[in-house]
């Protein structure tokens, strides 16, 4: 669409945003793919509408405060990117817009504090663990707390799982077939330590040497997507320095972190490290992609068939275009009956910090997702993202379902150990 965005004044960020706005032909193919449009049914809460609003703000035609509520309600799931025939890089537009406008935002003090707290605690497993213990203690008093603090508590597990100490190296079993570096992830180390334990076992079992660089930190995605670009940049720099280049791949088992790392070229656009970021991002692979390409070592057939539903995390399916590989590695388990979730392309509502900042909409999407998952009658729901995992599990339990929710690699790990049933 035509625009008068002052590209020269905005620098590299301006170019990114202008290019995205340019590409939109406002055809509306994005509407059925948008979770907030599905819930609210209004243009302002659709990708097409948000592109209009961002354009008007950038052109100075609309105050940021008028557009902000609608931009804030976007989950950033990028379902619209998959649906867009014109190739609008909506995710880049949104991320860059949030990053360039955040400092102009006026936010209530409590909201500011919760945001700051999240952005401090999420990237640090130590702080996050401390926060999670605190949350455990605070849970019974939830109803007397301000709303802004209730949502995070809802998502905390009743009991924080025992700590799993990440090794720095895991050697391949048998003949070595590859060598990779592994990103440990932040929140998932605290909330679901078995994701990493299972992933490392499966990688080793498949002849992969895994290096877990000690100097690594948070990928920075949460910071970048909430508009804290400076913090994201410094986290990115830490990782660029920490990860070795002489590996076959940089592997992650968290969809959000994987997309975060793949966004480094966008984050570092116009920075000194731009080239390095491009090269780093090109080596990043979700563990499902890495294993599908490597080819799995065979597993023994299951004693009796197990029905498994696979949930597409938005950050895998839409942001990274990874849909086939997780399914193919699950189907490699002899006797595993893989089923699809209805409305599978629709976001579960977790979306980074969305379920904390927009609890009402996140809750409606979570419940809708859980009902769709239940309709599959599967014994296990597999997915590749801690955020989706927490959200869907919370809503399944709320609906009274005992269905097991697992990481794709946990399913494989059990299959290798002959314990999947």
């Amino acid at each position, binding site marked *: *669409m*035509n625009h008068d965005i002052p590209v020269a004044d905005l620098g590299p960020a301006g170019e990114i945003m202008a290019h995205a706005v340019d590409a939109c032909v406002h*055809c*509306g*193919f994005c509407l059925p793919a948008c979770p907030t449009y599905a819930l609210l049914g209004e243009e*302002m809460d659709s990708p097409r509408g948000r592109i209009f609003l961002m354009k008007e703000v950038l052109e100075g035609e*609309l105050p940021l405060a008028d557009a902000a509520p609608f931009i804030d309600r976007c989950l950033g799931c990028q379902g619209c990117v998959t649906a867009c*025939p*014109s190739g609008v890089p909506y995710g880049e537009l949104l991320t860059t817009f949030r990053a360039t406008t955040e400092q102009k935002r006026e936010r209530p003090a409590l909201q500011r504090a919760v945001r700051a707290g999240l952005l401090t605690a999420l990237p640090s497993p130590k702080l996050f663990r401390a926060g999670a213990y605190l949350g455990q203690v605070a849970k019974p008093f939830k109803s007397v707390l301000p709303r802004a603090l209730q949502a995070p508590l809802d998502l905390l597990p009743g009991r924080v799982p025992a700590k799993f100490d990440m090794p720095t190296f895991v050697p391949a079993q048998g003949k070595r077939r590859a060598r990779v570096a592994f990103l440990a992830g932040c929140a998932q180390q605290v909330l679901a330590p078995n994701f990493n334990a299972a992933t490392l076992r499966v990688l080793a079992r498949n002849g992969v040497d895994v290096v877990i660089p000690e100097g690594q930190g948070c990928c920075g995605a949460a910071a970048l997507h909430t508009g804290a670009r400076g913090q994201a940049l410094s986290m990115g720099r830490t990782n660029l320095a920490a990860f070795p280049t002489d590996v076959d791949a940089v592997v992650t088992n968290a969809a959000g972190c994987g997309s975060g790392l793949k966004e480094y070229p966008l984050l570092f656009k116009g920075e000194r490290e731009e080239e390095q970021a491009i090269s780093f991002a090109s080596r990043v692979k979700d563990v499902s992609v890495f294993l599908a390409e490597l080819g799995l070592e065979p597993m023994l057939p299951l004693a009796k068939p197990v029905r498994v539903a696979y949930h597409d995390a938005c950050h895998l399916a839409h942001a990274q275009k990874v849909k086939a590989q997780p399914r193919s590695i699950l189907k490699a388990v002899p006797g595993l009956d893989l089923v699809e979730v209805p409305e599978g392309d629709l976001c579960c509502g977790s979306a980074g910090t969305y379920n904390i900042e927009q609890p009402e909409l996140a809750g409606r999407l979570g419940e809708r997702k859980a009902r769709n998952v239940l309709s599959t009658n599967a014994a296990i729901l597999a997915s590749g993202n801690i955020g989706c995992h927490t959200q869907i599990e919370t809503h399944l339990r709320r609906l009274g379902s005992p269905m097991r929710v697992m990481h794709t690699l946990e399913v494989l790990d059990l299959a290798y150990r002959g314990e999947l049933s």
Partner: protein
Amino acid sequence: MIAERLRSALGARKVLTGKAERMTYRHDAIQIGALPMAVVLPEDTADVVTTVKLCRDANVPIVGRGAASGLSGGAAPARESVVVAFTRMTKLDLFPERREAWAQPGVVTATVSERAKPFGLVYPPDPASWRTSTIGGNLAENAGGPMCFKKGVTGDYVKEIEFVDASGAVHRAARDAFDLAGLLIGSEGTLGLITGARLRLDTPPAFTRTLMAHFAEVGQAAQAVSRAIASGAVPAKLEFMDRACLGAVEGYLGIGLPVHAGAALLIDTDGDDEETVTEELELARAACEAEGGTVRVAANAAEAEDLWRARRAISPSLGRIRPHRMNEDIVVPRSALAEVVREIEELGREAGLVVAQFGHIGDGNLHPNILYDPKKESSDAVHALAHEIALVAVRHGGVLSGEHGIGSMKRDFMTDAVDAVTMDVLWRVKRTLDPRGQLNPDKLLPEVSA
């Protein structure tokens, strides 16, 4: 102020007045219009009546809107107006025993077939935007779609409509006596606001086969169409796309389309007798090969679906080539197709503008799209070329709009296509139903000196 009056009559929930909200309701998929004074989201016919009456009293124009995926400027307000967006009127009642459905205008097109499927029924009209577009918008533009060659367009599936006229009166119009329903269908919101429709459902064919053929040159593809139909095949769908379209769609889907071909045809045959369906597909294959085409038959339903997904994505994919476009929607006699397609390609070359062509070529429906970058190419040159293309259609005995409507995009060309006497009749109809000219002004009918 009209916005406040609407708010107090309908309640805040149904009326959007903020600038941000209004800004997102001023366009369709081709034009960006004037900022609406207010946006009304009616939930039933009574809300529409209230809105129309208040606007009439305040002398404010009204523009109806579905999902705004239209391609002629129909839903983009040409001047300050109240936009009535029907997206909350989504009630759909099925009457399988009568093979009918009653749909409110906000029902998404694809939903009708999805809901009818368990009863073994289908709603055939299938505009490319069917997952987005609404029944109301389809009715206003009399939308077609690939199926139209064998099955017809939206208007062919409407038994009765309910509409609100410019005075706020509610009418029920069937297709008997004067075909008032037919008059409203395709009137682009200029004669009334359609608030419901009784739709005819059909049984889906038991068998469908799909092929794609590609050709070195566009004219060959057009000739293959005439040959296939002359040889007795009645394809269910017969679609055409040129090289520019193939490239744009391949950039989106990456499914291995023949991007170096000059043009491609996508052909479906269907029916309840498998042998006939295959026979017809073979006739089409022979015709394509006789014109020098390379044929690939879809091996299974998934492959066929991929090809159709490619077809449906053409129009929006063109944004990959240039950010802006002028979309034509001409229909020409099938016998003239090869010549028309070549002439248009030549006109584009002469003007130095990119023209992409595709369409439901089986019934002579072509969509030449002029692609341009307003920062680099003059919109006057684009408009002049569009006019030339319209004249090609008229010269070959064709019409200006097959399915997207005239809207604001092709309004100027109407005087080339419609004689003065007929134009006078059209205006008299308009004045009878909308004496004050409040319904979607500056659309469809060009101003004529009295």
